[in-house]
């Protein structure tokens, strides 16, 4: 009996997938949440080791843990000291000097972000010297920064602009100087305008410390310092994985996604085009933030309605192909287990991750599942299966993908992603761009009447929804693999041990006679650790899930700004709530998938699947710009 038969043979067909409205957590002040979490961690660390100190900030007595910074201590009493190079998820840089304060007895102004508090310390945050220093520092930055806030992609969401507003800067005593550096717009995913760079170093840190792709460095020195790839190459020419985490790190508009919204508007306006779209589960978890809502607060049905309003002919969901991915990938894993294939098998949903392993571990490509990502499975089917079913000319289909991800823009242009006979996905639109389109269309997304996705490629299960969070693919796979192999129904389908923000998670799951050892890594920096183990022959896992971005897709480079770890956790919570709210939560129970196999694909890993849903990888260099001898 094929796995397909085992999965779908006896199941009832469900026609309706409910889109439910959930209760959302109370919206919190984002900045406060971030500060507090960092501070609490430090406080916890300090409690047993060190005591508390008492200091005075602007005349108020503050009790703070020894080792806390002035910045953290000030937060306790509601004093927000301005910062620019500071990032709640990063190391202290003390470089911008916007956060300077006066400390009694100190000759110099002190950077609040780096200066630890001590007992009896007296801090003043708004003296004339402090105000003068902050203002001059801001004017210095602004005078060496393009004066085109109105045209900037970060207009109204820029840390520098906000400070200029808070400090009531209405003129600049310094002459405005343009750096005159070329804009890098060669990458299909990420563009850079180094003229806007304020040299805070945050993009460098996330790329080096979190992702370990280390595309950026500070080059040259002094006022000529420029943050750029080696030899000022384009991001397109170096081993950039296109994850877009540098965009989240950037306080200004120096790094940003390539905006493709105009292509979509043109396609919609073209009467000869049948414009269809898919949307990744992580998009919903974050999109509402663009409209002032809390993570996950925006209802899926409202997004569907907004997309119809914009003019999409069909509104589908990537979750459909996420369920399909579980079918294909689950089978691939079982096949490898049975036939002595390369193990551990590693997931292949995340295009940033794929590019990472291609550049940095090309010797381990055999470990990757051959499954295309859900986006690309969807793309291949939406120009084959869908037009066949709907009686539409495939050439007329324009396929749009809404993704939390910048690397998806790169992925859809990979030459092998054209198995339908066309480019399978025509354009990828990030969450931020989608928000722009909804705003431009004048849609009141908070109040629009919810609608449902189109069938059949808009039908999905809870297992697909959790693809958006780190550990989600693994959990979805376990739900299916367990039931397929054992033939038993899971008592508890919540595999909570694979959830959460821990960098690398490990678990052993008893599936029949086999102890399946799994690992989950998010960020390519954590993936690197697992790959090193594999290389060293020290990894006895069967299956590994890797997502390139911190927190998984909900933390992707195309998500609303800001995206911090605190916000990621809130989006993850929204993802699991959505899963819990759905009537069907296992991929193999998705009736639309059953129908797909029945009427089109025949069976997982079958001939058609192989052609449309599986792919191959390319070994790349760490130094792709170097000419081969």
């Amino acid at each position, binding site marked *: 009996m094929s796995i397909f038969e085992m999965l779908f043979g006896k199941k009832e067909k469900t026609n309706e997938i409910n889109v439910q409205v959930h209760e959302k957590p109370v919206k919190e002040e984002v900045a406060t949440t971030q500060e507090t979490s960092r501070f609490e961690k430090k406080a916890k660390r300090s409690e047993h080791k060190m005591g508390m100190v008492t200091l005075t900030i602007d005349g108020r007595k503050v009790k703070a843990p020894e080792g806390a910074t002035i910045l953290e201590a000030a937060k306790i009493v509601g004093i927000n000291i301005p910062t620019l190079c500071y990032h709640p998820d990063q190391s202290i840089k003390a470089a911008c000097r*916007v956060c300077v304060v006066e400390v009694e007895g100190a000759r110099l*102004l002190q*950077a609040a972000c780096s200066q630890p508090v001590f007992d009896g310390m007296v801090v003043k945050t708004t003296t004339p010297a402090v105000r003068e220093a902050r203002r001059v520092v801001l004017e210095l930055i602004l005078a*060496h920064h393009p004066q085109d806030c109105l045209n900037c992609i970060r207009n109204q969401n820029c840390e520098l602009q906000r400070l200029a507003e808070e400090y009531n800067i209405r003129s600049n005593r310094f002459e405005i100087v343009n750096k005159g550096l070329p804009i890098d717009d060669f990458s299909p995913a990420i563009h850079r305008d180094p003229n806007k760079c304020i040299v805070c170093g945050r993009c460098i840190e996330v790329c080096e410390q979190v992702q370990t792709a280390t595309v950026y460095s*500070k080059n040259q020195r*002094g006022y000529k310092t420029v943050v750029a790839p080696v030899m000022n190459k384009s991001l397109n020419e170096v081993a950039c994985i296109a994850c877009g985490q540098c965009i989240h790190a950037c306080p200004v508009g120096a790094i940003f996604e390539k905006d493709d919204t105009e292509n979509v508007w043109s396609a919609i306006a073209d009467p000869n085009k049948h414009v269809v779209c898919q949307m990744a589960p992580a998009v919903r978890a974050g999109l509402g933030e663009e409209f002032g809502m809390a993570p996950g607060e925006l209802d899926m049905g409202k997004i569907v309605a907004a997309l119809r309003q914009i003019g999409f002919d069909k509104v589908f969901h990537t979750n459909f192909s996420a369920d399909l991915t579980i079918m294909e990938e689950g089978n691939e894993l079982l096949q490898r287990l049975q036939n002595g294939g390369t193990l551990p098998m590693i997931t292949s949903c995340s295009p940033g991750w794929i590019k990472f392993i291609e550049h940095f571990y090309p010797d381990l490509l055999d470990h990757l599942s051959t499954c295309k990502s859900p986006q690309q499975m969807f793309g291949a089917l939406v120009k084959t299966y869908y037009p066949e079913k709907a009686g539409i000319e495939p050439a007329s289909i324009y396929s749009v993908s809404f993704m939390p991800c910048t690397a998806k823009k790169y992925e859809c242009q990979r030459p092998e992603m054209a198995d339908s006979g066309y480019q399978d996905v025509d354009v990828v639109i990030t969450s931020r761009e989608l928000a722009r389109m909804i705003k431009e269309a004048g849609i009141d997304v908070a109040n629009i009447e919810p609608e449902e996705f189109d069938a059949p490629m808009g039908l999905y299960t809870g297992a697909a929804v959790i693809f958006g969070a780190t550990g989600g693919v693994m959990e979805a796979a376990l739900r299916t693999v367990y039931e397929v192999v054992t033939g038993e129904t899971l008592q508890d389908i919540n595999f909570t041990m694979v959830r959460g923000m821990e960098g690398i998670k490990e678990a052993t799951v008893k599936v029949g006679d086999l102890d399946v050892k799994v690992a989950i890594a998010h960020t390519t920096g954590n993936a690197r650790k697992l790959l090193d183990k594999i290389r060293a022959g020290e990894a006895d896992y069967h299956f590994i899930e890797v997502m390139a971005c911190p927190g998984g897709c909900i933390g992707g480079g195309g998500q609303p700004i800001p995206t911090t770890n605190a916000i990621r956790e809130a989006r993850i919570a929204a993802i699991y709530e959505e899963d819990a709210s759905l009537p069907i939560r296992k991929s193999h129970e998705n009736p639309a998938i059953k129908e797909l196999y029945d009427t089109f694909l025949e069976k997982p890993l079958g001939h058609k699947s192989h052609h449309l849903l599986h792919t191959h990888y390319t070994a790349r260099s760490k130094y792709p710009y170097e000419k081969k001898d």
Partner: protein
Amino acid sequence: MGFNKEKRIVLRHYGLVNPTSTEDYVNKGGYDALKKAKAMQPMDVVEEVKKSNIRGRGGAGFPTGLKWSFTAKITDADQKYVVCNADEGEPGTYKDRLVMEGVPHQLIEGMAIAGHAIGATKGYIYCRGEYPNSQKALRQAIADAKAKGILGDFDLEVRSGAFAYVCGEETALIESIEGHRGEPRYKPPYPGVAGLWGKPTIVNNVETYANIPAIIENGADWFAGIGAGNYPGTKVFTLSGDVVNKTFVEVPTDVTLREIIFDFGGGIVDGKRFKAVQVGGNSGGIIPEELLDTPIDFDAMSNIGMTLGTGAVFVMDETRDMVDVVKCMMKFFEHESCGKCTPCREGTFRLFKGMCKIANGEANANDLATMETLARVMNKTALCGLGQAAPTPFQTTVRYFAADYQKRL
């Protein structure tokens, strides 16, 4: 030269020993202090240095013994380091070069004593890249001393700078030894606790280490009694610019600038009148004749807004235009700022631009006021000493030579 106040401690062997001969140095009593120190408890060596009241001969004048004591006290470190700041980058200074090329063993001995005192078995001399000859002299002397077993288990290595003035800042220097861009770290933590490769590290200037053998040999009280009480000992000065004797001199710290320039330096070239002197190098203040009777010790200098710094004495005669000179100095800082912190990266750029504007006769009083505000902010806000001190030549010339500016506005 007939300058009776000269007193040589740092340069006591200069010109008298063959720098390439370890034997010669040993025959003149060299390495006796190291032997003596090694017979002492490390903490007693630290105490002796503390009691001598010697203060750092680099830029900041921090009490050397106190600095050593912080690091010596740390008992749970698997490794500590002794680092010598030989990145002598201040224009007008070449005192450290004299030591490194003339008496390299004296520096090595001082560092070995420091290693014993704080419990470090490894040292680095970070020597500026512009001094290939100094590096050669040091490498040869170290190899010879090691071969002769003089250094015991103390290992010493020379690292070369690569034309970056900022690496004279101790944390930037450490970054550079580690193989990184020479960008200063924020403090705390200080290097004494977490320095090179995160280990407790003392960083002292060449001249400071070169004083140590004599202190150990003759005792702390002897040293503390020389020169000014708050900054005892001697100081090596190097004279440049429009002064007759463009050379070096080592004097007790209670002499005055006037004595150095006119008695030792022989006054101004071509019988011209004195106009200004800059003390300490490019980041030093520029002062007029009325302040020449200030003693050169660290605190007296600080009181008139100056830093003794490196002991560079750059003399300018009556024909020199302060705007032209300061413009040159601001270009230096624009080129040498590491670019890490905003006030220095952008501020040095603006100060140079401003000086060009003034020099071209295109500036007005507002521009000058803006520069003064900027300078004040840089003093208080920049991450390291480079950015804090960079405006000093501008600020002091605006104060003492206002006429040079006024006529250009």
